[in-house]
């Protein structure tokens, strides 16, 4: 693997940390380098520590590591917070003219750049972060032209004057370091001719939704799901769609349900407390047999927990949430590109089986940006299956002797015909009450049993008709099996390299469907040791696996609020393999 470089900018929220990092990430992507970003941020608008980290390599990367080579520190806290990751030879760019005196560990290189005054020379103090980016380019031997391209993309809309000033700020930073420092960090950043795209998981979900024909979205702002709504707003209109910011999550899911019943592909997305509020309507979606995609971008709970931190604690909620028994699907993308493809699949599943589909992502994926070949998102490969949406010719088949549409007809596969408003003879009522084939309320025991069985049968049909496969990495014949879901996949894949170096043979299975899910009993039986890795305290997926195979598995759980890192995970796996399986 080629050398990778770990870079970060940190300061207080409100310091423009996010846009600074994004600009550098885009510059690296423009230079044909792979980029993987991560963010530390607090739940506040101004003040408090915040950082944007970039790992970059010419090879593909999909996780973070415990190492930081270059740090742009706008506050002392930025240095303190990252001491563990900084190492001998790390360079710290700071502004010695500011009131704080940077306390730089001896073994590291302090690069004192008058960020503020150089920015003022270029046209305004606000550009001090761009001066720092210019300095970073010089330190890493990275061609500042790529930074120029990123600045044009970022500020092009604000006029050429702004763009030129920013370019000048970058030049001044670069020149200052060139003239005053003679650093040999041995980190010249190689470039390639590749044209990558750089996006995060929420953007991939939004893009997948539009590609899949989603035209109506209703949501209520909540971290970290909001950026899905922000992505769709302003874009979905170009495809004839619309986004409504509802008054609360109860409204959001009911609006989305209304849109779906009217025939649109519709979605809502939320997190944490928002998914709790929506729970009331899960059953209505299922009993009215409405195709709906409900996205949950998990964050640390319970209650308001840690809204800006990573966790995978809502699995039980999406698997079991809601009163009564609700047929549903739980789809769990395992990477940013899969956020795109699984969103499309979620819409197809929803319409084919007319029931809620939970698309379960997590904060780490939602805020992390990663580079991809553009054809990773090949739009020609997108297939839309609207299931049993009847047309004018078919509707007659589904009328009873009195000409009433049997919207909940008891079919062999459990899926009924679906008519949408405007279709002649398709008019019918649906309800959250138990009902007969016509959608009318009933408490007759045999009809109740028939309808419950019919709805549950859809899941059985789907189990047979769809491929509930998994993604696999490492050595297929290894004695040690690691099972994971969601965003942990990237770190696990890279951990394989570390484990291999240590002579530990591991097979990794990453599961993109939790319900229905692939049958892993043979794989677990074939392994000597099985460890389930997830970002929660109790091991919700491990519980599910144990239920399936009726034996105990080992667990690696992280609930600090921070995602798994590849090197850390490799160590934990090695340690866990030497321990006894809990009784």
């Amino acid at each position: 693997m080629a050398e990778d470089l770990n870079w970060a900018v940190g300061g207080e929220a409100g310091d423009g940390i996010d846009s600074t990092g994004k600009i550098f990430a885009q510059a690296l992507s423009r230079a044909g380098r792979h980029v993987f970003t991560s963010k530390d941020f607090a739940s506040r608008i101004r003040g408090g520590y915040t950082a944007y980290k970039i790992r970059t390599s010419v090879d593909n990367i999909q996780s973070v590591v415990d190492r930081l080579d270059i740090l742009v520190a706008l506050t002392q806290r930025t240095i303190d917070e990252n001491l563990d990751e900084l190492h001998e030879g790390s360079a710290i760019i700071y502004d010695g003219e500011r009131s704080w005196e940077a306390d730089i560990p001896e073994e590291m290189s302090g690069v004192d750049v008058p960020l503020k005054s150089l920015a003022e020379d270029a046209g305004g103090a606000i550009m001090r972060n761009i001066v720092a980016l210019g300095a970073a380019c010089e330190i890493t031997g990275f061609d500042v032209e790529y930074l120029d391209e990123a600045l044009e993309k970022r500020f092009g809309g604000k006029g050429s004057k702004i763009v030129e000033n920013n370019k000048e700020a970058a030049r001044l930073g670069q020149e200052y370091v060139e003239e005053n420092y003679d650093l040999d960090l041995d980190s010249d950043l190689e470039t390639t001719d590749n044209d990558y795209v750089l996006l995060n998981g929420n953007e991939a979900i939004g893009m997948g939704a539009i590609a899949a024909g989603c035209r109506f979205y209703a949501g209520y702002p909540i971290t970290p799901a909001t950026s899905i709504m922000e992505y769709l707003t302003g874009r979905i209109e170009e495809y004839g769609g619309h986004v409504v910011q509802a008054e609360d999550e109860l409204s959001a899911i009911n609006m989305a349900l209304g849109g779906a019943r009217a025939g649109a592909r519709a979605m809502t997305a939320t997190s944490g407390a928002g998914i709790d509020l929506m729970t009331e309507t899960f059953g209505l979606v299922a009993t009215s047999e409405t195709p709906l995609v409900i996205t949950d971008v998990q964050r640390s709970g319970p209650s308001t927990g840690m809204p800006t931190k990573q966790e995978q604690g809502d699995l039980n909620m999406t698997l079991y949430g809601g009163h009564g028994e609700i047929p549903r699907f739980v789809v769990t993308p395992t990477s940013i590109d899969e956020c795109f493809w699984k969103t499309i699949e979620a819409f197809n599943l929803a319409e084919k089986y007319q029931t809620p589909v939970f698309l379960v992502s997590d904060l780490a994926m939602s805020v992390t940006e990663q580079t991809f070949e553009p054809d990773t998102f090949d739009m020609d490969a997108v297939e839309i299956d609207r299931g049993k949406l009847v047309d004018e010719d078919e509707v007659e088949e589904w009328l009873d002797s009195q000409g009433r549409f049997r919207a909940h007809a008891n079919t062999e596969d459990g899926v009924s015909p679906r008519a949408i408003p405007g279709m002649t003879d398709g008019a019918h009522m649906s309800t959250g009450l138990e009902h007969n084939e016509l959608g009318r309320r009933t408490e007759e025991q045999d009809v109740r049993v028939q309808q419950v069985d019919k709805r549950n049968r859809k899941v059985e049909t789907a189990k047979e008709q769809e491929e509930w496969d998994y993604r696999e990495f490492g050595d297929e014949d290894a004695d040690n099996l690691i099972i994971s879901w969601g965003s942990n996949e990237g770190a696990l894949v890279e951990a394989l390299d570390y484990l291999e170096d240590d002579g530990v043979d591991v097979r990794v299975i990453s599961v993109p469907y939790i319900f229905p899910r692939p049958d892993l009993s043979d794989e677990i039986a074939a392994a000597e040791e099985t460890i389930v890795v997830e970002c929660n305290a109790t091991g919700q997926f491990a519980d599910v696996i144990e239920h399936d195979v009726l034996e105990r598995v080992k667990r690696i759980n992280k609930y600090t609020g921070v995602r798994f890192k590849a090197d850390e995970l490799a160590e934990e796996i090695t340690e866990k393999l030497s321990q006894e399986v809990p009784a």
Partner: protein
Amino acid sequence: MSSQSDVRFTDFKSDKQPTWCPGCGDFGTMNGMMKALAETGNDPDNTFVVAGIGCSGKIGTYMHSYALHGVHGRALPVATGVKMARPDIEVMAAGGDGDGYSIGAGHFVHAVRRNVDMSYVVMDNRIYGLTKGQASPTSRSDFETSTTPEGPQQPPVNPLALALASGATFIAQSFASDALRHQEIIQEAIEHDGFGFVNVFSPCVTFNDVDTYDYFRDSLVDLKEDEDHDRHDYEDAKEVILDGDKEFQGVMYQDENSVPYHEQHGVTEDMSDIPDGAPEDAMDLVREFY
């Protein structure tokens, strides 16, 4: 779809017999809704009725159209979603005073201010009927019920005032038993460009012996007969809506300049019509990330 002239109000009737108590105001309310829908040129195949929970919520069962009977208090969000996706469809939401002004009060305020082009009919009987007689948000403060033996001891919600304060563009009140007037008012709500809100006095003959047919018959003042009332005048509307001494029927307020949500936001497409694959220019969405 049948042509306008073919449609009779009975086409909106389902073959299901209502289980409402004999004499319930909801019969009259529903008849007026069906007649108004037919009279305004709609047919069951292009109409969507969304109902909440309670006696009023059963209305979708007894009518024939596309319909959804949802969860308590959420009729308006569902109706909003239907109309967003399908501007071509006539959407009507119906519910009761508990459904609309208690559990659904938050949605009511926001549906009103959104001004989506649909109508909302609330069957206000000033009591919880289906749960057998508890106080509702519009019950009088001294109205004795099983859960309020000395009366709620708090002022009732004034739904018309709530609507006015929320920026409503059409506010009306009708009486289920005054069939022609009721139908006429519902028709106006349907025809209004925006959110047409009608609070309907729909007496509960089983649990409410105060707000009875006789009470409304004797006390209702029809704004139609009040030549001084200008429905387009906000101050006039405020006066009748905040009048604590009289009960009115008629259109209290209609904003002549109402611009419905769809026009304000350019939401005009039939969203049910989507291609077999990704949109033709979908690769543009990817290129944005270069």
